[in-house]
């Protein structure tokens, strides 16, 4: 049952993404993407990561995509005629890259499967938090500095000359 759900969600994700990257309008792409991210969040949930799933929805589908939408609106890029859509010829190299990457990963991943631990019931929020603050506390500090400087940078660039 879970497996079927997984494949279904995977299909949704892929189709959503495919639609997003081939969308005529950026706004539509965002919408497709949000769909795809929702499906992905469910996959996360299926894979025993409820917290990441939640954050995926909140931060990605919520905040980041909205940020995108906001910029698209601000720069008045919503109209398709303003954007040169990639020609078919420009897709070819991308396609080749895609095939190589997928193929290679598939080949490499198929080589030998490690056995999963016997009893896995997903990772609880508690477990997650303990790991985060006991083992990766420094990472939190670093990422906070980074976020701060994202702010600084954005502000700096936004400055009027």
């Amino acid at each position, binding site marked *: 049952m879970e497996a079927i759900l997984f494949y279904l969600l995977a299909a949704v994700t892929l189709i959503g993404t495919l639609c997003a990257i081939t969308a005529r309008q950026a706004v539509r792409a965002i919408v497709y993407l949000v769909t795809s991210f929702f499906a992905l969040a469910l996959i996360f949930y299926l894979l025993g990561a409820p917290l990441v799933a939640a954050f995926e929805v909140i931060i990605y589908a919520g905040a980041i995509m909205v940020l995108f939408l906001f910029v698209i609106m601000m720069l008045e890029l919503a109209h398709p005629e303003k954007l040169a859509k990639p020609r078919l010829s420009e897709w070819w190299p991308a396609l080749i890259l895609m095939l190589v990457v997928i193929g*290679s*990963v598939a080949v*490499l*991943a198929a*080589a*030998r*499967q*490690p056995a999963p631990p016997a009893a896995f019931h997903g990772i609880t929020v508690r477990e997650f938090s303990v790991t985060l603050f*006991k*083992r*990766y*506390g*420094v*990472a939190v*500090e*670093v*990422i906070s*500095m*980074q976020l*701060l*400087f*994202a702010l*600084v*940078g954005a*502000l*700096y*660039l936004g*400055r009027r*000359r």
Partner: protein
Amino acid sequence: MTLADLFSIMPIVITAGAALLVLLTGPLLQAGSSCAIAVAASLAAGLWAASASPANAPVLPGLAFTPLAHFLIPIFCLAAALTLLLSHGYNQRRAIKGEEYPATVLFALFAMCVLPCAGNLLILFLALESIAFAFYILVSIDLNRAESGEAGLKYLLMGAVAAAFIAFGFSLIFAGSGTLALSAALAAPGNRAIVSAGWGLVVIGLAFKLSLVPAHLWTPDVYQGAPAPVAAFLSTISKVAAAAALLMLLAFAPPLSEMRAPLYLLSLFSMVIGNLAALLQKNIKRMLAYSSIAHMGYLTLALLTGSKEGYAAVLLYGAIYTAMNLAAFGAIAALSAAEERQLIADYSGVGFSAPFRGGVLALSMLALAGVPPTAGFIGKFFIFYAAIRGGQTALAVVGMVSAAASAYFYLKVVVHLYMHRPVASSPQNAHPAETAALCCASAAIVVIGVYPAPLMRLVDVVLR
């Protein structure tokens, strides 16, 4: 965690604190003061790191003041301080105002201090990306020049893609090995194939940061667009940091059988293409960019041997390369007026109209060319020694030949400095801070060139 443990990571604390301090007090202080705080903080961090004693045991989870950190952090701090000194006059001339600049430099320094201490892939990744992040800002810091923003965009887009590659690589490594610990991830007895796939992606991602062919294309543009002191910082410390990251990974990886060929080609192409493309380059910063591509090729050559000697060579070369490129870009920065001297031809006759700065530029060029008795020669010697010892004689010969060709474009600068009639106006007087910074860098070039033994001893301590 004891107080002593905390002491050993004080450089990180100092730089982070100073960055925040500069940000907070920036609006209240003059630019000079912010800069002074930043310089003082980086020097203090450097001194602290130099005097603290390293230990391999982690201080905080995932953070250890390793011998590598003990070696690298002072270099990073010194380089940051020199960059700040160099950029003070430069920023004044170019109307780059605000406390953001010193704060961001300190942020970069903070991330760099974290990097060699990192004990797991996550912190390593975050440190790497924070460094890159700081540089996105720094590269585009000059709002008056369109090139600066353009360079920022290029660097950011490339950087983001590369970050995604590295992250994907790390994720594959994690998926294959089930651990993020640096010491275990690459060597874990999990799914070797998946790990090696991740490894490959990490290598290309780091190749971007080291600007190895074919991930090198951003380098000339970004160097050209970035303000000269930033380019100095970017071309030296960020490379050394990336090399250190690669080194840390390699040090724990099993002997590289499958990665040898990719690294071999990266090194080969970087050396050859970097040097060739620089030959007829007219823009001095682009020329230096190609030269840095080639130099990173040499560095990879030493890494490729997978031997202790090779890693020692990488570390030594990193330090030396830092001094050389800081001097080169520093001289460019110090010689700039309201506009930078873009073309090599713009430096005609400068060797006589500004003897000190011209001399430093010439010295750095000779050092980059690897002419004794400059540090560049010692570095190159060590690299090729390690390569030959590691069995890479053919590649070493290619490297030597391309290095010989590279002398041409380095000399071209020297030729313009001393052997052409001046065309542009003679440069203004140098800011004392710039003079001091250039003095430091050139002294390092000469001293290491003549008596490298102490530095080598330090390097050996790191790898013991």
